[in-house]
């Protein structure tokens, strides 16, 4: 793991989590939200565990995408899995 890797790698203009089209809004039923899509308030707090840069949320694939690490972290049952070994390597066209 790379505890010292938190460099200023965020891209210019990237100020926070990108919310996908399928995002549940804040008024949605909490329990349903918890079981399904990742909580929007949680998304605002998460960064890539390797590069500490912002993530984009792909609601369709239920993934949190780190462009800087070229990894997609899965969201399972509404729980973000921020473990690099569990992440999918992004393809060249992604």
């Amino acid at each position: 793991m790379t505890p010292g890797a938190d460099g200023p790698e965020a891209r210019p203009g990237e100020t926070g989590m990108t919310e996908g089209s399928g995002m549940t809004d804040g008024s949605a039923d909490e329990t349903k939200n918890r079981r399904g899509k990742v909580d929007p308030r949680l998304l605002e707090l998460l960064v890539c565990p390797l590069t500490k840069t912002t993530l984009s949320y792909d609601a369709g694939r239920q993934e949190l995408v780190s462009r800087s690490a070229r990894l997609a972290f899965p969201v399972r049952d509404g729980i973000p899995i921020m473990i690099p070994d569990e992440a999918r390597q992004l393809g060249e066209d992604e």
Partner: protein
Amino acid sequence: MTTTQNRLIDRQFGPMAAAYVESRVHAAGADLDLIAARAAEVRPSVALDLGTGGGHVAYALAPHAGEVLACDLSAGMLATVARTAAEKGLANIRTVEADVRALGLDAATADFVASRYSAHHWTDLAAGLREARRVAKAGAPAIFADVVTSGVALYDTHLQAVELLRDPSHVRNRSIAEWTALLRDAGFETLAVRRDRLRLDFATWIARMGTPEAHVTAIRSLQEGASAEVRRHFAIEPDGSFLLETAVFETVAD
């Protein structure tokens, strides 16, 4: 090696998640009361529970915090915590599967950090504490509670041996001196250390972890063959029940 150890933790704890939610040792205690009391004073916006396990710290923090982030390596534990939080009506608990050495949280996210009965599973306690400090705001209270060793090698060896036999994901119980040095190095100022002893009922302790019979036999053999000093120190009872030393470190992020 690290991934293997992390998966070992998930494999060990995932199937036993319900037992940890129900565990009386985990569901109550002066340390848990202290964490709740401090949170009630501070009223944090974002409180972090590192190694949430059965979720008891998160449940204690939730009434006093805007959001509680319950982090753990075990997906099974987190699913159980999410379900239990919903049952308790605690809608502000968010679960995150993460390694304490690289949490996937932005710097200065949390204004309250707590961890209880988790750090002895961390493969690199120093790195975990540094990461806790990174995600904590300056001045944030941070409370760490865990089983500790006396610092005496004789007792330390016995404790680590029975802990590992019971739970293959056990890493190490640290002494109070080790803890305070690691906390200082990570950037936490220790304000107070509260020591206590905790009686573990042997049958419950073993059942909660699903320890294989061969290992149970080995633990009993170690206990029965232990010297008088060791037996006295841990107050080992005829059925194998014994006393653990615990400590709560009340700190603040520098």
